């Protein structure tokens, strides 16, 4: 990997694989990506949302809980789960169950984070594994809803370039 921008691939029916390079030594990337003290600084912040809970016990069998309120201060998203493998600073695996605005649990995925030491840089590979193709495809589509700047004009542009 030679660039810092994120690549997303769907190598199987039920997975999403994200790869990216970070300009920092692996031990710092591992800390920033796993320590609840750092997560609120980067993890997920649609405009107006705030992360109100970020707790985690980063060890095998340990649980974590991440919760956000929306711009009106109402509970918007809850993500919780358990760590199933913890091998710092190179590998961490956890389950993820999401609950959104009163809709109840929306299925569980398994997230595998692998960090490869490149000296002063680090290569990341994150694999999200879903129960079904439909759950995986739903997760891909969900980026549209949180006030992200998606614009139908941009979608039209993508459609115009897609020749499949």
């Amino acid at each position, binding site marked *: 990997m030679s660039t810092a921008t994120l690549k*997303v*691939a769907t190598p199987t029916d039920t997975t999403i694989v994200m790869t990216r390079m970070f300009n920092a030594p692996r031990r710092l990337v591992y800390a920033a990506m796993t320590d609840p003290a750092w997560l609120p600084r*980067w993890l997920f912040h649609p405009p107006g949302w705030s992360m109100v809970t970020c707790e985690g016990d980063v060890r095998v069998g340990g649980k974590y809980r991440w919760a956000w309120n929306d711009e009106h201060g109402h509970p918007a998203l809850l993500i919780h789960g358990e760590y199933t493998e913890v091998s710092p600073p190179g590998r961490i695996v956890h389950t993820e169950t999401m609950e959104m605005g009163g809709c*109840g649990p929306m299925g569980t995925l398994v997230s595998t984070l692998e960090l490869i030491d490149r000296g002063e840089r680090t290569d990341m590979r994150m694999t999200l594994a879903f129960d079904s193709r439909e759950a995986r*495809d739903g997760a*891909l*589509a969900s980026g549209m809803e949180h006030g992200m700047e998606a614009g139908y004009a941009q979608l039209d542009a993508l459609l115009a370039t897609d020749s499949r």
Partner: protein
Amino acid sequence: MVAESASPLDRVFHALAHPARRAMVRTLASGERNLSELAEPLDMSFPAASKHVRVLERARLVRRRISGREHLCRLHAQPLRDVAKWTEQFRRHWEGAFQALDSLLEQMKSKERAAPRRRGSH
């Protein structure tokens, strides 16, 4: 609201943009269900569930048949296969988070340069 003239892909994105409808799609992946079975885990009224199913029908993700008094819904997965090609939105969402992570990592490195760790500590 998605206009009647919206393209099929627009309708699919609109349909999947709501968490309740994604939950319904997930449930239907296991097989045909009636409306009550779709509404119940979402703690939703029958008319509200029916409204969501109509959006899914307009996106051609779900087919409904009426058998006696039951509305039976079945997943039609082809439109979802078209959606799977559109990883761009998902990528941009995560790239935003990773750019914030880039900034945090720069701050962490600066802090370390300002207050170096003792040599020999891993």
